[in-house]
């Protein structure tokens, strides 16, 4: 085969990037959500420690948790923790359930479905008041 023929026989260069498999991405997401939650825990213990300082100091800081931007970050936190919890259950089933490894991919789709089902009403209740005061004009 000539050099040109070899070149032509190769698959197109486009789309050769490794995209991983769902199990790899669930592992990546598990790490990222875990680290984010750990850093939040650090801040959260410090802010809660203000209850020991004075009611005013605590109330002042907790008010920032009710602002629209931080309220949105709380939705992100709940989403991250919920994914980490559900995927953690999946990891335990893979480790301890005899059929776990065989169904690991189906279990990933299942936990993502549960995540969506829980997050839809969750996001509604978390943001309802913020959206109402921002755009509803009331109270």
């Amino acid at each position, binding site marked *: 085969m000539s050099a040109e023929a070899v070149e032509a026989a190769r698959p197109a260069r486009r789309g050769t990037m490794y995209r991983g498999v769902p199990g790899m991405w669930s592992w990546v997401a598990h*790490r990222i959500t875990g*680290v984010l939650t750990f850093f939040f825990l650090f801040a959260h213990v410090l802010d*809660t420690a203000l*209850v*020991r300082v004075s009611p005013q100091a605590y109330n002042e800081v*907790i008010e920032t948790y009710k602002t629209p931007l931080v309220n949105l970050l709380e939705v992100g936190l709940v989403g991250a923790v919920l994914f980490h919890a559900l995927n953690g259950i999946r990891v*335990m089933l893979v*480790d301890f359930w005899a059929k776990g490894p065989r169904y690991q991919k189906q279990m990933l789709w299942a936990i993502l479905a549960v995540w969506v089902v829980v997050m839809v009403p*969750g996001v509604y*209740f978390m943001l309802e008041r913020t959206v109402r005061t921002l755009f509803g004009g009331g109270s």
Partner: protein
Amino acid sequence: MTLALDKPRSPRRPSVRRNNLELASWLFMRISGLALVILVLGHLLIMNILDGGVHRINWGFVAGRWSSPFWQFWDLSMLWLAEIHGGNGLRTIINDYARKDATRFWLKIILYVSMVLILALGTFVIFTFDPNMDS
């Protein structure tokens, strides 16, 4: 790293099965994780979603909850399990990604200091909180 088999034909293999800290850490992640599913998701549900969520939280709300030993115990268990579970996870991540021994060493020192600080402060606050501070 080269794999050195210590006396491969000896009937006992020392240090392989005994004192396996990584196995204990692996098992701890799963046991604490199971407890944290209940503790943390319950905490998030109560604090962020039910009955007005974060908008009803203030000092009085915390004082009301921590006047009950049940919620004190809930929060204390959650603090210890979450901090050690998260700290152990970060330890694994530092071991995976730190390239130099010195970087790995110092990152872990910072991690362990922060864990001791958070556990000590959180435990101190839960045990010494006075719900009648404002009256």
